[in-house]
């Protein structure tokens, strides 16, 4: 949710910067000089979905340290308003889970209690499990300014509506995850590698072509929400969510080439939880402008029972959940999208060049010795599964263009240095057309995927 960072005045002040031609600059700070407070952190939820419910207990870490200090060995349970107790068991360090799948019940209240190894007791306030109304994903073509505000990025904005109204619930938190499937038109059958034995003689560079062992045809890109997305129905004339922004997916990252899927999860939360997340969001999504609000500690719903002054971070969120997943093919989007949509056929125009073994590309004469062979060969025939060409600068000049295939006709002689002689055709195309890992990762089809 890049868009969330530039709202309101912060955005306008950036716009003023652009207008005045001021290039404000942002540099990274070393963080070692800040002080550190080792507070207990509770990150847990309890929902009405039938699953293994989890609570993660840890300690805050110094800023810039990329690890977690788990709070181990605690006794953790959840109590409902009828007095029933659900015990959690430490499944991995700091992670406490219900022994089996279970679900919370709408309208019932729950509180989290835990006691650390050294006997310190903590407890959350009671939170009522609210019903989460059904959601409907919709999307529109949109443009967002880039981070530097000097250009717009085109893409699709996904929204959430609650078509049947929001019922009694007014406050929501959202998460999304998405996946896009991409099949490249010219999956590379070869890997190319440039060997430059002598720096001073670039004309002696050799392209080494070898078969591509991985299947680069189809990849998936997976994304997850990485910021707090909150919604509410306060100040609306009807109690429903309409046009709630959830995810902006940029087209420039070729998210929609073949098939795209997004799932949005809606958590119905309490007002207290909403206010907690609102502050977290406000304090964590700053951009250094003078319109950043004054930051301070954000306390959730957990207190120490032994020491009133102890700071406990985090929230025990009790929520009703509703979710929806949708699949899209590019032709299902509207006209605005279509006109901005870049298809592979627009960018992949494959090129063929005639290569003359030993003569290098572009027919630069090669005066070396030649050894003729008579039999036609295929790529499998190459000794050591590798063929080499002399190349004067060719591939560097083309930049992102890759040899994805190689066809051989006529004579296929090799010289004594294992250089191919004779005539062939190298098929070239931009990297994004030959290698699907540019668009994601080579992965098994996700279990939810429907083609």
């Amino acid at each position: 949710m890049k868009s969330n960072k530039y709202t309101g005045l912060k955005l306008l002040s950036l716009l003023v910067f652009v207008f005045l031609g001021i290039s404000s600059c942002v540099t990274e700070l070393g963080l070692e000089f800040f002080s550190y407070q080792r507070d207990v952190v509770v990150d847990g939820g309890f929902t009405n979905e039938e699953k293994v419910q989890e609570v993660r207990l840890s300690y805050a870490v110094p800023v810039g340290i990329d690890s977690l200090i788990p709070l181990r060995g605690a006794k953790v349970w959840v109590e409902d308003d009828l007095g029933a107790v659900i015990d959690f068991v430490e499944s991995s360090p700091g992670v406490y889970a219900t022994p089996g799948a279970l679900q919370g019940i709408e309208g019932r209240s729950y509180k989290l209690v835990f006691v650390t190894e050294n006997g310190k007791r903590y407890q959350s306030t009671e939170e009522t499990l609210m019903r989460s109304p059904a959601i409907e994903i919709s999307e529109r073509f949109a443009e967002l300014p880039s981070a530097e505000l000097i250009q717009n990025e085109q893409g699709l904005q996904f929204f959430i509506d609650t078509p049947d109204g929001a019922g009694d619930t007014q406050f929501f938190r959202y998460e999304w995850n998405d996946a896009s499937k991409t099949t490249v038109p010219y999956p590379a059958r070869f890997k190319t590698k440039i060997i430059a034995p002598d720096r001073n003689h670039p004309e002696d560079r050799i392209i080494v072509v070898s078969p591509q062992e991985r299947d680069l045809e189809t990849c998936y890109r997976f994304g997850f929400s990485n910021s707090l997305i909150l919604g509410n129905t306060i100040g609306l004339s009807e109690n429903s969510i309409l046009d709630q922004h959830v995810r902006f997916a940029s087209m420039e990252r070729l998210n929609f080439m073949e098939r795209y899927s997004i799932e949005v999860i809606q958590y119905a939360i309490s007002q207290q939880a909403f206010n907690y997340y609102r502050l977290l969001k406000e304090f964590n999504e700053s951009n250094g402008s003078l319109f950043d609000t004054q930051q301070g500690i954000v306390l959730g719903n957990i207190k120490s029972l032994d020491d009133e002054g102890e700071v406990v971070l985090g929230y025990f969120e009790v929520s009703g959940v509703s979710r929806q997943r949708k699949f899209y093919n590019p032709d299902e989007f509207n006209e605005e999208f279509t006109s901005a949509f870049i298809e592979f056929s627009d960018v992949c125009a494959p090129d063929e060049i005639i290569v003359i073994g030993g003569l290098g590309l572009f027919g630069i004469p090669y005066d070396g010795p030649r050894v003729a062979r008579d039999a036609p060969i295929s790529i499998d025939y190459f000794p050591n599964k590798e063929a080499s060409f002399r190349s004067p600068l060719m591939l560097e000049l083309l930049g992102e263009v890759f040899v994805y295939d190689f066809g051989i006709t006529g004579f296929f002689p090799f010289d004594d240095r294992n250089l191919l002689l004779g005539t062939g055709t190298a098929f070239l195309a931009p990297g994004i057309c030959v290698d699907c890992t540019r668009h994601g990762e080579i992965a098994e089809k996700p279990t939810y995927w429907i083609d």
Partner: protein
Amino acid sequence: MKNLLFVLLLCVTLSAYAQEPLKFSGNFSNQPVQEVLQKIESDLSLYFYYSPQWLDSLAFSGVFNEAPVAEVLDKVFEGTDLFYYRAQTKVYLTKGIDIIQTPEIVGDLKIDSVVVSEKQPVEVEEDTGKGLIFTREYREKAVVENDLENYVFEIGDRTAFKPGENSTIAGFIRDNETNEAIKDALIYTSTEGNSTVSTVSSADGFYSLSLPNGQNELQVQFTGKKRAKRKIVLFSDGKLDIGMDVDVIALNEVIVSAAREKSLENPIMGIEKLSIRDAKVVPVVLGERDILKVATTFAGVQTVGEGAAGFNVRGGKSDQNLFLLDGVTVYNAAHFMGFFSVFNSDALEGLEIHKSSIPTKYGGRLSSIFEVTSKKGSKEKLSGEGGISPIAARLTVEVPVVQDKASLLVSGRTTYSDWVLNSVKNVDFRENKVSFSDLILRYDHDLSGKDNLSLSGYASQDDFRLNSDTLFSFSDFAHVNTLASAKWTHVFNGSFDGSISGTYSKYGYEFESTQSPPNAFLQDFDIEEIGAKADFNYGLRDRHEFNFGVETKRYKINPGSKMPLGPESIIAPNILDEEQGRESAFYFSDQFTVSPTFSVSAGIRYSIYSALGPGSSFLYQESLPKNSDSRIGTIDYAKGDVIKTYQGAESRVSASYLLGESSSVKASYSRTRQYIHALSNTASISPTDIWRLSNEHIRPQIADQFSLGYYRDFFDGSLETSIEVYTKKLQDLQDFKTGADFLLNNTIESIALQGPGKSYGVELSIKKSGRLNGWFNYTYARTFIKLSGQTAEETINGGEFFPTNYDKPHTINLVSNYDVTKRFSVSYNLSYSTGRPVTVPVGSYVIQGLELVNYSDRNSFRIPDYVRMDLGFTLKEGHRNTKLSHAFWSFSIYNLLGRDNPFSIFFDLKDGKVKGYKLSVFGSAIPTISYNFKF
């Protein structure tokens, strides 16, 4: 003036008789007088002294044949209002002032023995009065530029002359060019061997002084004007009007002497005066001269960062400053989020900042008064001024509506293109717009010699528009200031004058969001202030200056409304109740000159504020935090009902004691009360800040300030130094809970925190005038606040005093300008300050898969120190009077060293990790060129 003045040039009266008549021949036919004089000069080796514009339109025809020079000159000046006086080879021309050579008068005075030729030095008898010795004293001194300076004016009736007694001299100080009265000019005696007597001219330029009879020398000073000197012989009570000339050189000079000379003896402390000319020499970023930005180079005036709006004066919050434009409150003084001030410098006369002993006629804000005065248009001739900088174009025109009676000033400024945005390659982005404009109108009418009417109007607007395809929280944002005032000034007599004025000020903003039709809305805020004021000045026997009056203001605030836009919008209309309030005050002060070395200014302002209905007010359970849970009831008030009244006296006392000729000590105490508060949770003042009135839950803020200062001048006043120490105690300083939401909040009390504050500091400053001029100051200042409530959310930093986010202990400012030639000057600025406090994280943690930072104590860390140097060059085109227009180019480099001064530190999530960043606004040197003209 013509009729009243008889000028006697005693020193040369007799010597005139001894001259041999010179003869001159020439034939002129409609030739400019200037050329005639040039011919006389070259033929007879005479030198004429005059002001060229007197001769501009004059031509002469005539034939001379060996004519005596006196006859020639009589002819040439026949029918003009020019007079001449010849002293040997020098001929002085005067306009409208006849130089009478009347030995009879001298005889009448029985001073034959005194007024003698240069060959006869004279013994003076003691009892003839000291006024009569000048002949010998001044005879030797060459008359150089301005005749009036060495003329000796006789004041009063010489037959009534009583040696050893005092008489009163009174008159008006005027601008020679515009004939406008000059207010606040300092008139003082500089007679050798006598202690200095001084006064300051009133709004209509009037002054009066009681002086010993006899010879006296008067000097008049005013910022931007040449120092005027008058030699007088005071016989009895009489009148002397003094005209002042624009200091032509001063176009490029920093003049601080007038304010300073005054400050040495004036008991009022902590006053900073800035003329628009001072502002011209200070290099500015992006070429927009900005009087408020220059103000930040004064000791005790700070901002939180580059491009930030709002000032922190002596540890005060940014909403504690009262910005007045011609007496009308300006609620938002910033364009473009703070990069520029809303005042177009071309239309301004100057700026006066009161930061410690605020005069009793002002009130309503705790920390300071920024009194911006617009320029009166010229009543004589059409003139104008304009300029182009990379950001904006501006034009000011002065129109005499009724010759010598009424004038109109119109001054406008606007960003003239979005060229930077347009230069951005991406077509879509060009649809965004940012712009501002402002307009000042001022009409002045001299109704009679005693009545003046002044009407002024002002409007400023900022517009931001974002491409409507984009998906922001809002797309259009605009804020507007509208001001108007009418003021009638009447002079009852020489020692009593007064004025009645009416003011109107409105500030509002509006933003809309239209991208998502179901959520489209329009939201706004506005504040309206209508005021009336009667102000009187009464002088009593030159020792008391009384100032008194009454003032009342009516506030009306729309704290916010949100309305759906378009048929699809499901936004529910939400209109907060309007707030009304009335703030009235009466005040009285006396500036009392106890002795020539000791003066006291003591006054009291009594202010009464009432929050008025209609409206409703919530009741809360005592001893619980005020929120919806503790609410136990509502009281509704009908229109005009008084909801709550606060009142109190604000005493303002200051005293100065002269320690010899060039140094003084001063002390002051001042109390201020503030009933209106800007709600802000951000470091900078922002255009969306909401002003709210005190009510039964929000108490007025009160400040007490004590200050003590020592002032000393060196080198005849060309180097002025001072040291001031102050301490401030604040009550009920307004702050807010962390993360409080102000927009559309009808229970401000639920988010407000009020607590005590304290500030103290030392300000050291040096000012220099001359060819190398400027100022330097060092400030040590601290400011703290304590927020200790009943609950954790109402308590910040454990309920202890902590530094505010504008607490910058050390500040150094150097502003210097060197006039290389009259046309070319170089200026250099240096600015240093300790980094401001910021809140930094004490840890990070993960919630819902997101890495987050944990903040603890407020303002526990400081951003790195700030250092900046600027260099500026100003080149004027030839400054000849004959030229129709004058122009100057200025070239400046802001942040010469390209130092990467951090503006803020912030923490953000990048690739799933929290990282700290620092943001610099001007991370490199910024050169700017601008062109300015005047006609």
